[in-house]
């Protein structure tokens, strides 16, 4: 630590003799820059090793011949691993599932979340309970949520079947999770149930930051409720909507626990998402090079989606 500090760029100026610096240190007196180095370097080192190094390592692994567990292959094969992944039909099936999952669930969550945020954006008795109802689905672990809904959707004894039969929508029990389309819809239902609340929380914070005099002004100008929503609320909420979109799309595109616990990717591969597929490919066959190639493809796709959002929605200096 001490050597770190002495290398700090801010000190070692003109007259600062070694003696006074040593004395300063002995008295535990540091400049801002020295303090910053001490406070920031441990965490930064952490991020370098655990977050940035693995991303680079995955790129390296993906460009070399089939590395299997701990036997690192040094043979450069270029994009061959990517070719193998791209030629695999099940990869494209997983891609399709992930795309449907993401781009059906996220827009629905946005609309419902906005409705919920507007509903709750006022003072009322029982607000604490309502906020609790919003937070609860967010706090549930995805995998446990999947187990819970696997039980609620159960084909023989599930309560959802019971309710639908009782109110006459179904004549007899239906195996939601055993039919490809129904399983995918069920998975969408579960994720919308769980994550709409998070969207609502983010948008609620956005709504509360809109100054009320803007509404007053619009009201005086004779704008109706609907016009105020379209011309005041929505434009001002745009940056917050962008944040919520990115916060939801990234995890949705990488979903793993929900299909793992709800359907195990089935029936067939109808609910196998990209990460579930890649996890299986990697850890069942222990072919880390192909797994790394798949991981990079997923990373690149996620980044492209975010980039599109930013290009479409970002406006520097709104207002």
């Amino acid at each position, binding site marked *: 630590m001490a050597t770190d500090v002495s290398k700090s760029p801010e000190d070692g100026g003109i007259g600062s003799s070694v003696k006074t610096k040593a004395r300063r240190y002995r008295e535990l007196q540091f400049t801002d820059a020295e303090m910053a180095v001490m406070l920031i370097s441990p965490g930064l080192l952490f991020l370098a090793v655990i977050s*940035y190094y693995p991303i680079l390592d995955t790129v390296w692994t993906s460009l070399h011949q089939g590395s299997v567990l701990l036997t690192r292959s040094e043979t450069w094969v270029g994009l061959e691993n990517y070719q193998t992944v791209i030629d695999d039909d099940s990869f494209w099936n997983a891609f399709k599932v992930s795309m449907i999952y993401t781009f059906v669930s996220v827009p629905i969550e946005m609309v419902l979340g906005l409705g919920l945020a507007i509903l709750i954006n006022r003072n009322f008795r029982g607000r604490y309970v309502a906020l609790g109802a919003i937070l609860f689905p967010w706090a549930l672990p995805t995998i446990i949520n999947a187990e819970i809904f696997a039980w609620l959707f159960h084909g023989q004894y599930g309560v959802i079947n019971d309710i639908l039969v009782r109110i006459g929508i179904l004549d007899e029990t239906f195996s939601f999770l055993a039919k490809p389309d129904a399983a995918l819809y069920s998975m969408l239902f579960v994720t919308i149930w769980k994550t709409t609340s998070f969207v609502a929380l983010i948008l609620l914070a956005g709504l509360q930051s809109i100054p009320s005099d803007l509404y007053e002004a619009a009201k005086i100008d004779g704008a109706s409720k609907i016009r105020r929503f379209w011309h005041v609320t929505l434009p001002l909420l745009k940056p917050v909507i962008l944040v919520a979109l990115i916060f939801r799309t990234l995890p949705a595109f990488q979903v793993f626990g929900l299909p793992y616990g709800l359907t195990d990717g089935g029936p067939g591969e109808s609910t196998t998402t990209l990460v579930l597929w890649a996890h299986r490919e990697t850890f069942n066959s222990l072919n880390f090079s192909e797994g790394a190639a798949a991981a990079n493809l997923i990373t690149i796709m996620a980044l492209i989606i975010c980039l599109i959002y930013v290009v479409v929605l970002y406006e520097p200096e709104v207002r």
Partner: protein
Amino acid sequence: MSVRTRLQELREGKSRQFGEKVGFYFLIVLLCLVSFFPVLWILRTALMPPADVVQFPVTYIPESPTLQNFQDAFDQQPLGRYLFNSFVVASGTAVLCVVLGSMMGYALARLEFRFKLPILMLILVSAMLPFFGRLIPLFELALEYDFLNSYFGLIIPYTAFQLPFAVWIFQAYFKELPDSLEEAGRIDGLTHLGVLFRIILPVSAPAMATTAVIVFIFAWNEFLFALTFMSEQKMYTVTVGIALYGGQFQNPWGTIMAAVFMAIVPLILLLVLFQTKIIEGLTEGIGK
């Protein structure tokens, strides 16, 4: 005449207000019902004798409630151990995130130094990196350095995942503190370190609570890394233990739901105790 119409208007206005209120509370009740129904159903299933669980049409209220499922959940698998493992990993992650996050957050918010913006960007961008892209190299690292099936094998990556969030919360909190606080300390002859430990540390409790609670929930809930890194049953976290349960027993739904209930009790407690803090934390910086 005019008095009567005004009264009428008033009454109409009031009844419209009343109608709106009824509609509003109807929606709130619906929201609560939809949100809390699963937890009620978990409890209902967990409290039923196994034979009653597998019946159709289903019974909504357990007729002869029993704690048998809870007993089974703890007997058939080391559920207590799973809960303990999760608790150790989640607390360890929360502590490490608070320590590192507060250090970095303080420096970024209150100190003058070069490269501040690039460092902040580096920290925040790391939050966007996909998890699966980091899983394979970290698994190999953990294997090489014998971190598989150990608490630190999970605490270390979890800390890295949540550190950007922790830094975000702390730097926002420290930015709001008045300058006079530090100045007073300086006048009293405290050094930089003295100011940090004697003045800043004691007032940062709210930010610490927010960070710790949310990081704890994240670590408690994580599944992908826990499944991959913990292969010995006695090291399973509760999410892994529950996900890999079943199969070996017939109709284990009552037992699974009892285990699920035990796994979410800590979360419910945290929500009840820290609701406001959690909401503040999740929405820090939104709309500013």
